[in-house]
């Protein structure tokens, strides 16, 4: 299996206009992933499947990730006038990083016994721009897994043959795997609470629950 930057350059040559990025992974797993933009994702997927050197014909896992709006604090050296003298002072600057939802595809090649190549797609934001192209026309195994991502994260896959909830019931309104999901309060009976369940139990029975 060729290295990821080689795949990236061949993909850029094959699909004109595609915007790719390599997301590094510094963990012991060492699995960097290829970020593809939503407009050209389907063409990129078709190239990955049909290219003779890659032949990635099996999407073994499709999952979602929820990135919340984050603020990064950076220390920046800024020239400021302090007590009449110009000095370089360290200031913390806050940079706002807007949140988004992501779909991550793990692709293997059964024909060449190689892999994995990890593909990512990001949505615009978490609120209203949550549409992504479905890669089910390319890899059939994405069908149920994209339904699961739709159910649990709320990403709407355009072009999916049968997009409906798979784990929760159809009338359910929330997306449970999002980081800001609030679960319903049915913790009436908690004989041995600990960690965050302890907080919930304390709110219910603040009079007689000891720490």
């Amino acid at each position, binding site marked *: 299996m060729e290295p990821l930057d080689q795949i990236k350059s061949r993909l850029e040559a094959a699909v004109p206009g595609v915007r790719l990025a390599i997301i590094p992974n510094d963990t012991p797993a060492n699995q960097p992933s290829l970020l593809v933009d939503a407009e050209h994702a389907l063409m990129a997927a078709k190239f990955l499947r049909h290219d003779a050197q890659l032949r990635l014909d099996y999407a073994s896992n499709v999952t979602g990730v929820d990135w919340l709006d984050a603020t990064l604090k950076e220390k920046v050296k800024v020239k400021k006038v302090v007590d009449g003298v110009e000095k370089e002072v360290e200031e913390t600057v806050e940079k706002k990083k807007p949140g988004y939802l992501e779909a991550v595809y793990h692709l293997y090649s059964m024909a060449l016994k190689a892999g994995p190549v990890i593909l990512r797609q990001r949505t615009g934001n978490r609120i209203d721009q949550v549409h992504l192209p479905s890669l089910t026309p390319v890899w059939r195994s994405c069908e149920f897994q994209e339904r699961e991502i739709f159910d649990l994260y709320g990403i709407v896959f355009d072009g999916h043959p049968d997009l409906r909830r798979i*784990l*929760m*019931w*159809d*009338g*359910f*309104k*929330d997306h*449970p795997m999002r980081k800001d*999901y609030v*679960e*319903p309060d*049915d913790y*009436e*009976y908690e*004989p041995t609470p600990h960690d965050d*369940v302890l907080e919930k139990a304390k709110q219910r*029975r603040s009079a*007689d*629950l*000891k720490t």
Partner: protein
Amino acid sequence: MDEGLRSELSKQGVFTTTIEGLYNWGRRNSVWPLQFGLACCAIEMIATTMARYDLARFGAEVFRPSPRQADLMIVAGTVTKKMAPQVVRLYNQMPEPKYVIAMGACAISGGPFKQGYNVLKGIDRYLPVDVHIPGCPPRPEALIHAFMTLQRTIDSQRLTGPGRPRHLDAAAGSEFPVPQFGEHDLVPPSNPEIWQPPQLTRAK
């Protein structure tokens, strides 16, 4: 009946019993369970019916596929909120007298998956449970013990009087309301007539 007289008569070859004893003996020795395995506890339930821990010698010869022919529902496994209305519907379809055994931690209270978004915290929120079996999963011997406890309960049920079981009491209902799918949770989250959260008093 006087025990001394009974033993004297039985020595002479005369066997005496009560209608109640005979009725309950027939009922408890032929409890037919409904095939209702949901998750891992179902494997232990299957193991209990197989050769080593044979449940058939207690009368549970056939696990009925249809609720109309069963009198015991062994809820074996995690009850998800999506499955809960179907569990209650199947229970409603069983004819009286019917019993429920909640097998395993998940059926009792949600078990190890209690904080899950789709896990019902115990089937006793919607159904009256007769025997709870703790364990994850409970051993086949524990299921046999629960079955024997159920048999003892059936034995002690009177035919007349205020403590008589539901199937002999015309006023008692045998069907329970099926929970509906709400927008965030099941509606209602529990059946207040059957289940009230038990009072906890902490040791000081």
